[in-house]
Structure formats: structure tokens, C-alpha cells
């Protein structure tokens, strides 16, 4: 059904809140249906590789977009870095003192024997960014054996929210919405590779998809993204 009547957007699961609003708005405006399939970026990339009927791909990091590009699955001309995000250190609501994330910071001490909750440090983008930042700050060696790796950044957030872990590293977008955690510090943007959400059309995109991609750069879309805590980075290119 989705295939014949509209377009299919493959988007990283963390974009859901904002993108649901935007897809609905676009649908109202254009009269074309946009079905959004949310899953992990890695899953989506592999599925596009396997011939999934996706028209637009929104990845949560550059690696999987690069992967798709390297396999010739996307239209390189349409690729833009649409959104940005920031990485924060969080603690349960009423716990822990603020920490200054300066080089040489002793996070291990702040853990007080507890664990540092992060998304998978090898696999999940948020985890990789976090590891890079900790390395840059010289804190990695001190905590690397104290890390509780969650399946994804939401699960890491949960560990802190439930008080299982005294500290955790998540996106600003996640931390902002959960009242049971508080932001202890924000990582300096230059401490880790830029946190970017690239967007692109797939090789097999239907014509309507181009309009959708353009709509992602519209003020309306920008508003929606920003409302959910993303920083808006750039207007997608609409011509090829």
C-alpha cells in the first residue's frame, strides 16, 4: 500500500517525534502519503542495500550514510547534513554535583563505584561520540572498565533515570525530555566528531520524494526539529 500511494522514508528511530509531525504536515500540504519506517541506522542501511522500497534515508550518523553511499545506494547529490545534536552528561534528578568537563576530568571518582551508562561504545553512534569525547578529555582510561553499554541511547538514559547508574552520556534531545534526569554538563562540541544527521534520496527514489526532502528544509520542519531539541544544520539541496 505504502509503495503505490506515497513515499517511504527510512529514518533513525531517534528522529521519530519530530519527523512524525513533519510527515503529517507534508501529507496535508502535498496530499502524498509519507510512511516513515523507524529503526536503527545500521538496520535501515542494510535494508536499503537489500532492496528496500525506501525513497529517503535519514541516518543518525555519518558512518551508515557513508556505507550507503559507498554501495551506491543513495543519490550523492541529494545528501545533506540536516541536523545536529549535542552530547550531555546526565545524573539522576536529585543526585550528583555539577562537573566541569575539562581535560583531565576525573569521572571515575564521580561514579563512586557505580557505572557510567552509555550506548554501545563501538556500535551505537551516541556511544562512539561519547567515547571519542572522553578520550579527548583524557577521561577514557579512568572509566573504560566502568561503562555499562546499553543497546541504544534510550536504554542508557533509562539506566540513569532508574538510578542504576549515577552518570550517563546521552544526547541533549533525550535528556531534555526526561524529568527524572538532569544535565550535569554538556560536552564541548569539539570534543567529539560532529553529531550530524545526514539525509539523502535513495537511488530508487520516486519523484515525490524530492519534494519531501525539500520540505525537511522548510521553516515548518525546522521549527519541529528545534522544538525537539535538534539543531538545524542545513537546507537540503533540492535540485540534482
Amino acid at each position, binding site marked *: *500500500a*505504502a509503495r503505490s500511494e506515497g513515499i517511504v522514508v527510512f529514518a533513525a528511530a531517534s*528522529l*521519530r517525534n519530530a519527523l512524525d509531525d513533519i510527515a503529517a504536515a507534508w501529507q496535508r500540504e502535498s496530499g502524498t502519503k509519507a510512511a516513515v519506517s523507524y529503526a536503527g541506522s545500521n*538496520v535501515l542501511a542494510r535494508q536499503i542495500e*537489500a*532492496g528496500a522500497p525506501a525513497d529517503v534515508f535519514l541516518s543518525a550518523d555519518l558512518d551508515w550514510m557513508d556505507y550507503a553511499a559507498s554501495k551506491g545506494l543513495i543519490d550523492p547529490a541529494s545528501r545533506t547534513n540536516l541536523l545536529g545534536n549535542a552530547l550531555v552528561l546526565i545524573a539522576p534528578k536529585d543526585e550528583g554535583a555539577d562537573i566541569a568537563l575539562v581535560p583531565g576530568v576525573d569521572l571515575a571518582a564521580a561514579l563512586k563505584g557505580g557505572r557510567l551508562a552509555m550506548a554501545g561504545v563501538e556500535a551505537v553512534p551516541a556511544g562512539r561520540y561519547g567515547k571519542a569525547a572522553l578520550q579527548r578529555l583524557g577521561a577514557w582510561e579512568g572509566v573504560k572498565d566502568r561503562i555499562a553499554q546499553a543497546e541504544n541511547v534510550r536504554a542508557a538514559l533509562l539506566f540513569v533515570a532508574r538510578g542504576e547508574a549515577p552518570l550517563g552520556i546521552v544526547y541533549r*534531545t533525550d535528556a531534555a525530555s526526561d524529568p527524572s534526569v538532569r544535565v550535569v554538563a554538556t560536552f564541548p562540541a569539539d570534543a567529539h566528531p560532529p553529531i550530524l544527521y545526514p539525509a539523502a534520496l535513495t537511488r530508487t527514489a520516486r519523484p515525490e520524494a524530492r519534494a519531501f526532502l525539500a520540505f525537511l528544509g522548510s521553516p515548518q520542519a525546522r521549527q519541529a526539529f528545534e522544538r525537539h531539541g535538534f539543531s538545524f544544520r542545513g537546507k537540503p539541496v533540492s535540485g540534482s
Partner: protein
Amino acid sequence: MLNAWLSPEEWSAVALSLKVAATAVAASLVPGIAVAMLLARGRFPGRRALDAVVHLPLVLPPVAVGYLLLLTFGRRAPAGAFLAEHLGLVFSFRWTGAALACAVMGFPLLVRAVRLSIESVDRRLEKAGETLGAHPAWVFLLVTLPLITPGILAGAVLCFAKAMGEFGATITFVSNIPGETQTLPTAIYAFTQVPGGEGRALRLTLVSVAISVAALWASEWLARRVRRRLAAG
């Protein structure tokens, strides 16, 4: 009232999950019984290998199963292309694929239950059927099958419940496309990935549980009826 409670998209996930689970159970029933029979009774060289293969979906992480399915039944994969061309049966990114994933994941559960039942059938009854002139195939239909009904029901409901909860293989194999492959569990997953989605995830979880429990109770009711008949005074 329920309409207000669930969004149209959520409704379509509920409907799709039901369709997928029912199809998965229906499609795996006959092969499941056949394989259970082979494993319980067969004496052929590949028996142990078949046994292992049947259990594989249980052992493998579901995501791995989904990935294997993608590699086998994807649009570009040989088996997928063959089926699409000759039978018009396309799995990739269709609800049929979700059903396939659920069927594969539920298969070991179905086979085990049926097989346990088969192994507890008194074979002397089957022999009695043969002396009455019934070919072993008829004996299977008229004697064995009715006697293992409780096991089939148990297996079917396990398979159904598994299908209602299966997430990893499904999302990996056919993604999470609303209206096409977004089942209840994948919808729930998507909600848990964003801030504030917990409430809706919980609602959908309750729906899913309610459906499975209803199926469970129905199957138990049926099984009890059957068993009461079989009870030796």
C-alpha cells in the same frame, strides 16, 4: 472509544499484527506437524541436522535471524528472486515477510510442542488402526492427529504469542513501514526510541498482551475440551 485511544496508525499496526500472527501460525502448522512427526518417528540420516536447524531460530539472536532472512529472501537474494518470479510471492518489505519472520521464530516452539505430544501417543493404538486396514497415512489422520490435538493447540498458541511479540527478526528483515510491515512490537519499539513515547508504547503493549492472552485462553479452553474426551475414565 477505542478509536480515541489508539491512532489510526496504531490501529493498523494492531490489525497487521493479527494478520501476520494468524498467517504465521496457519502457514507453519502443516510443516510444523510434518517436521515434528519426522523428528519424533523418522529414522533418516539427516535427522539430527534437521533437529538442529529447527531449533536455530531459538538460539540465534532474532536480529541474526532477520539478517539471514534478508540474505535469503531479500529481493536481490536467490531464493527471494526465485519465489517472486515463479510464485509471485514477495517477502521483502511486505507483511508477508513479517509473517515469514514470525513463522520462522515460532517454528521451534510449535515443533517442540507437537513433537512432545507425538512422543506420548500410545503407538499400540496406531498399530490397532493398521490392523483395521488403515494405511499409515490414514492412521495418522484418524488416530495420531486427534490424539495430539492438545499439543498442536499448545504449539499454535506459543507460535501465535511469539508472533505477537516478535520484533528483532521482523524489523531487521522487513523494516518498520507503517501500514505494511509495522507490527505491534515494531511500533512499540519505535515509541521507546524517543522521549515521551513510553505512554503510547505501554498502551500498545497492553493491546498486544490482551490479544495474546485471549488466544491463550481460547486454546486452553479447546485443549481442555479435547482432553476431557480423551481421559480414561
